[in-house]
């Protein structure tokens, strides 16, 4: 060939594009629908957060773009965390799990010290310099998944057992119980509920004996009754349940949130009022609208179509996660994926369900959509874990 041109020769190691498009390349192996749905949710979230905060001067200090920019920044950091997680890989992380677990337990403990601050009745935050604050319980959700998956899958993946034995299960539950107990003391009941569902999902996927699964469900129910009976709940928590049972109870007090949220969503109709046009949103009738009640903005301003789209996108994320859980051959990956599924599914259901009045109010963010750094970082790390499980699965053919 004259001129030294090599036009048609196949050279797998040549050029970044070729690298990306190679059959076993990272780009080919990434789960794009998962990434796309998660990005779409974050993008919608930024619009909704913007709409909800644009004229809340007391929060934005007069800058209508304050929350929009912060949300975009959080999403960017989340994306970077995802890439880092993929780059490290969930298997590599496996070795660091005990350390991560230890750190997360220390962090939640730190919340109970004077370092912690209280937001909306939950003492769940650590204040950092420059106006930042983190919510360690968000990261604890990940470390609980990882530490349980590590323990439960270790001997199964080694081929020693078909299913984790009772001792391993007991140990895993013990490790999960420590941070959960601390979070319970904050008290951050919502996060404890999510963690309990995560534990359930992890146990189910690990193949632990049915006795453990049903035992855990029974213990959960019994624990709830005990908490209620022993009066371990704070007044505000009881009030939220009472308002859930009867929203008309006190429309100006505890029932206010749910009532206003339902009015906002209900008034959206099929296509909504249009972004920035909702009277409930611009009138700031729904409290915490950029965080826990962000779904009401979608309901009012984007209508059934927009709010439905959020549910569909969450469905896509969960569908892809379920596929990843089923396709990977190692139990560790399956269990991690199942934990994440349980987390996303329950948290989304609780968050949207409370705005729709079918669940009691609990302070939980809507994954990807709600404003909040800690939550955003945690869910993107989880997406990174899912991607890593998919990328690193053994190729079958």
């Amino acid at each position, binding site marked *: 060939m004259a001129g030294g041109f090599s036009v048609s020769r196949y050279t797998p190691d040549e050029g970044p594009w070729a690298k990306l498009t190679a059959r076993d390349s990272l780009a080919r192996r990434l789960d794009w629908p998962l990434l796309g749905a998660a990005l779409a949710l974050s993008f919608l979230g930024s619009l909704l957060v913007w709409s909800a905060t644009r*004229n809340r001067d007391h929060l934005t200090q007069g800058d209508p773009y304050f929350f929009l920019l912060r949300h975009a920044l959080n999403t960017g950091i989340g994306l970077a965390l995802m890439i880092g997680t993929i780059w490290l890989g969930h298997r590599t992380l496996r070795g660091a799990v005990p350390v991560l677990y230890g750190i997360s337990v220390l962090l939640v403990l730190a919340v109970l010290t004077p370092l912690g601050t209280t937001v909306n009745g939950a003492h769940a935050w650590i204040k950092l310099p420059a106006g930042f604050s983190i919510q360690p319980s968000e990261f604890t959700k990940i470390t609980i998944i990882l530490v349980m998956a590590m323990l439960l899958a270790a001997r*199964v*993946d080694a*081929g020693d057992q*078909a*299913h984790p034995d009772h001792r391993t299960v007991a140990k895993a539950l013990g490790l999960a119980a420590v941070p959960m107990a601390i979070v319970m003391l904050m008290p951050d009941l919502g996060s404890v509920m999510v963690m309990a569902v995560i534990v359930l999902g992890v146990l*189910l*996927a690990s*193949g632990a004996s049915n006795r453990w699964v049903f035992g855990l469900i029974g213990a959960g129910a019994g624990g709830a009754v005990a908490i209620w009976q022993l009066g371990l709940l704070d007044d505000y928590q009881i009030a939220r349940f009472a308002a859930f049972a009867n929203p008309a109870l006190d429309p100006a007090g505890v029932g206010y949130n749910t009532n*206003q949220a*339902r*009015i*906002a*969503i*209900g*008034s*959206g*109709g*099929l296509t909504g009022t249009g972004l920035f046009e909702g*009277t*409930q949103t*611009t*009138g*700031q*009738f729904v409290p915490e609208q950029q965080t826990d009640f962000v779904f009401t903005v979608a*309901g*009012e301003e984007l209508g*059934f179509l927009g*709010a*439905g789209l959020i*549910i569909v996108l*969450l*469905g896509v994320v*969960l*569908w892809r996660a*379920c*596929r990843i*859980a*089923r*396709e*990977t*051959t*190692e*139990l560790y990956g*399956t269990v991690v994926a*199942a934990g994440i*599924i*349980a987390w996303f*599914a*329950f948290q*989304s*259901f609780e968050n*949207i*369900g409370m705005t*729709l*009045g*079918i669940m009691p109010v609990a302070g939980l963010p809507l994954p990807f959509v709600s404003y909040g750094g800690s939550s955003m970082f945690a869910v993107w790390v989880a997406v990174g874990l899912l991607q890593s499980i998919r990328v690193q699965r053994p*190729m*079958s*053919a």
Partner: protein
Amino acid sequence: MSNIPETGRTQRVQIRLIVIQVLVFSLLLTLGGRLWYLQIRNGDEYTAEAAGNGVQQVVQPAVRGSILDARGVPLADNETRLVVSASRTELLKMKDDGVGVLTRLADVLDMKVQDVRDKVRLCDSKTPQPCWNGSPYQPIPVTDEATTQQALQIRERAEDFPGITAEPTAVRRYAAPGKARTAQVLGYLSPVTDDEIQKAQDGPSPYLRSDQVGRSGIERTYDKELRGKAGVTRYEVDNLGRVMGEAENDPAVAGSTLVTSLDARVQAVAEYELAAAMKQVRNETDKITGRKYEADSGAVVVMESKTGRIVSMASQPDYDPNDWVGGISGKQYAKLTSKKSNYPLLNRGIQGQAPAGSIFKVVSASAAVRGGHAFNDRYECSSSYSLGNQTFANFESQGHGPITLGDALKYSCNTVFYRLGHEEWVKDGGIKPKKDAKNWFYTTARDFGLGSETGIDLPNEVKGRIPDRQWKQDFWEANKDAWCKEGKKGGTYVQQIAYESCLEGNQLKAYDSINYSIGQGDVLVTPIQMATAYAAISNGGTLHEPTVGKAVISPDGKTVQEIEPKVSGKLPVNAQTIKDLDKGLRSVVEPGGTAAWRFGGWPQDKIPMRAKTGTAQVYGKQTTGWFATYTDDYTIVMTISQGGTGSGSAGPAVRKIYDALYGLDSAGNQDKKRALLPEPQKALPKVQPDGSIPAPKVKPYDPTPVTPEEQPGGQEPQLPLPPGGQPGLTGSPASTGRQP
């Protein structure tokens, strides 16, 4: 690439993953379903709720219309006070929640800072007065007694007082021109109730919490016209009530002006003379009870004979209507509604009822004519009338022999009417009425408008009572159980009465018909009913629905809606009988008549006077005096409860009202310049091009009697003889001795 993992995956894990997947998607489906239910199925309901959430109304009160007398003198109007108000919405926008502004404001107004701050806080169960219990979007009044200087300071330094306004605001005032309080006729306003606010909320003219509503008198009857229409501005607000934009603005429309047929000057005379007459008789001793007369209450109605319009209406005891302005205190209210003060809120002209006594005899005379007795036939005026072993005596048992019905009115002869009433009762079948019983005495009373409301444009008029056969039956059915329980044969007097009533209380007895024929027994009438009936005799037989309101003039003065007098009926007798009655009543003030002694010197040829006296017996009380009179133009009926005879108690007062109307001195000389209203005011007051109505000055009533000597200028002094030269016009009850 395959979805089926090849190794290391047990069946158990595989199944559980599918279970998880199914669970996850059923949760999402649940959310989708619920979302559809809220947004699509029930969406409209929530849309409506959201729409109501973000809108707040600010209501600007409409200035209440004035109430004028027939010549334009304001009886009720508004005075302007400088009201300084603070807008809570504006204050809350400030960094210090307006504390700085309120502090400066307190300084300007010479008030304590804490007082000012307390006034603008919102009331709730824990906040004691002072606090604001109206809408938080409404400017909250801090004071309504600001001086012009204070208001100017606030306005000139507007930048120092954001959210503070100092504006002249109208406050109701009852001016009492010439001391004419006109209390019960005007009525009063009181704050709107929660129920009323609720009802009017979505209507065209919503109430403010600070609004006043007419509760009685013409303030109530014409409340809708006087109230105007409040202005409403709707603002879109956020959850903290911060205004985001103005949605709608309906400006306020002031209330219309009501012109009445009242004359403030005549009203002042009527009020003064009624009170003076009552005061006078309290010094006189009642021969029957041996005590001084109580004169506990009284009323006088001055009516235009030809139209039924009310020229004045006074009721005693009365009160100062200004007591209600700015909210009545509990103490004052208790006083106005207590038995001790004898209920001054009652307008006894339309709400006081008593047996009619002898002024009822015009009804009985008409009934007799309808029953076939000729007016000018002779009827025996014996000194008494007997029924079995009962005797019904004439007043002081005087007899006059056979006389006409006209003379029976003149002398107020009871026995003539006893006989006629009894005969009619017998003719109707007595205790067991015939099927075609005419019951002339009762139907005639109803045809005169008695026993039912006259329909005057004042609220809560009472009906009075005509105790006919039907009423007897109804009353017995309502009370027989109690009577039968209490009654005892041969017991005490009360027990005996109850016993008899239990047995046959439903029967109209002979003595009932006899008593009734002279307006005694169970009959009850009101002054307005009697005035309407006598005015009808005066005008040739037309009964009117009396009216106080004469015209409603729009606030700009451009639309004038006249209130025409309404005819409610005709007297049930022919023109000749009315003439006969008129002649009979005329003879009452002429020599020998029962009222002659009160009309000495009256210019009977120029201004013919007709009158009828009455003295009604009320069980357990002193007698109630009635005096019903009319000229061609006016009808005046006065009554004084527990005041003795009609001519004795009310006679001089009624004459003085006529004197004032026609400008007569005590000798009967007319001075047209002094006459307040020699003929009824026909024209409405003049409205200026700018919509205002100028008010003539009203001089207070000077009750000192004008004697001929004091009369100013050139007029021939006249002897206190009437022009007709009939010295006999001066009579006295002692010399005539008939029932007055």
